[in-house]
């Protein structure tokens, strides 16, 4: 092996080791998605939707953390913000205020929309505090929170998910702009 190809091989091995360690960090950072998906699986009784959104959220979390930068920093706030639309509909359902398919259906929708609004505001504030690449932060956190919200709003059906998604997107961008303007 010539010295230059030797050096190139070592560079490739070092780079591979670095990328593998980033992937490991990503998997560790994505672990909170598992109890979130398990909760959704137990309560929402929509296994296909839960598995799909949970799997997608897990992969997205790994990718964002492995990529690094503002995308990685968006993961924590995204998951935290996403727990609002995840838990709120479940709490409303558990307290008996939301009965699926009945008259209380709108309360479940309200939980999703309210949770989405809370998540959007939280993401907007966090994005305004980010020093650079705010757009990437906002997009990453919104995607994470949205997918986490789908886990909770799965029981509310397509309209609940749509309400939550619109609420997150509609609240996060104006909040980020307003918070940035105030800072």
């Amino acid at each position: 092996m010539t010295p230059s190809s030797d050096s190139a091989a070592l560079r490739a091995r070092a780079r591979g080791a670095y990328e593998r360690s980033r992937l490991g960090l990503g998997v560790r950072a994505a672990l909170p998605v598992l109890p979130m998906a398990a909760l959704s699986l137990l309560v929402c009784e929509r296994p296909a939707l839960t598995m799909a959104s949970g799997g997608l959220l897990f992969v997205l979390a790994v990718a964002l953390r492995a990529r690094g930068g503002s995308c990685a920093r968006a993961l924590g706030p995204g998951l935290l913000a996403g727990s609002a639309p995840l838990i709120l509909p479940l709490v409303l359902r558990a307290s008996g205020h939301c009965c699926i398919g009945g008259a209380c259906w709108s309360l479940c929708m309200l939980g999703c929309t309210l949770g989405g609004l809370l998540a959007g505001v939280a993401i907007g504030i966090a994005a305004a505090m980010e020093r650079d690449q705010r757009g990437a932060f906002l997009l990453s956190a919104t995607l994470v929170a949205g997918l986490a919200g789908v886990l909770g709003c799965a029981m509310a059906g397509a309209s609940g998910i749509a309400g939550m998604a619109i609420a997150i997107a509609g609240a996060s961008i104006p909040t980020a702009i307003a918070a940035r303007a105030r800072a």
Partner: protein
Amino acid sequence: MATREHEHDLEALVLRLADGDRTAFEPLYQVLWPMARRLTDRMLLGAPEAEDAAQEAMIKVFARASMFEPGRDVRAWVLGVAAYECKTLRQRQLRRREHAGSTAPQVDPTPSPEAVAIARDLAAAAAAVLGTLRAADLETLRAVMNDERPDLPAPTFRKRLERALTRLRAAWSSRHDAE
């Protein structure tokens, strides 16, 4: 001042890589590789395994770069990993020899090129210093080296030897200690 600046730049590069900035990989590699190579070369006395140890150290450094915390001394961290690799390599070699049935480490009977060069330099330096001594001192030293007893009373010979050695030490010091 320049060293502190250099340390600061080095830390900034590692922190960029820890944050996921892949553009910091190449400049960091170019700084760290010679550093690791020099240390392993020194620790393993230029043995061919020194490059293997440096390579392993580089792979470990980059595998742990994402966990690097601000404020740590990059140089100390990298050299620590490289030194650990040298130690591991030596232990592995020792275990292999023990496993092969020989408890004592086997010494290569053919001297390495470095050892030959060092011996040659030492011989030249000794010859140069001996050349400055008086004939009587040289005769006394030669007799001791060849384990000969000249036809002299023992206390006289001991005195001569003492004087010759003192002059030899002084000549060596004046020639080499000042360098």
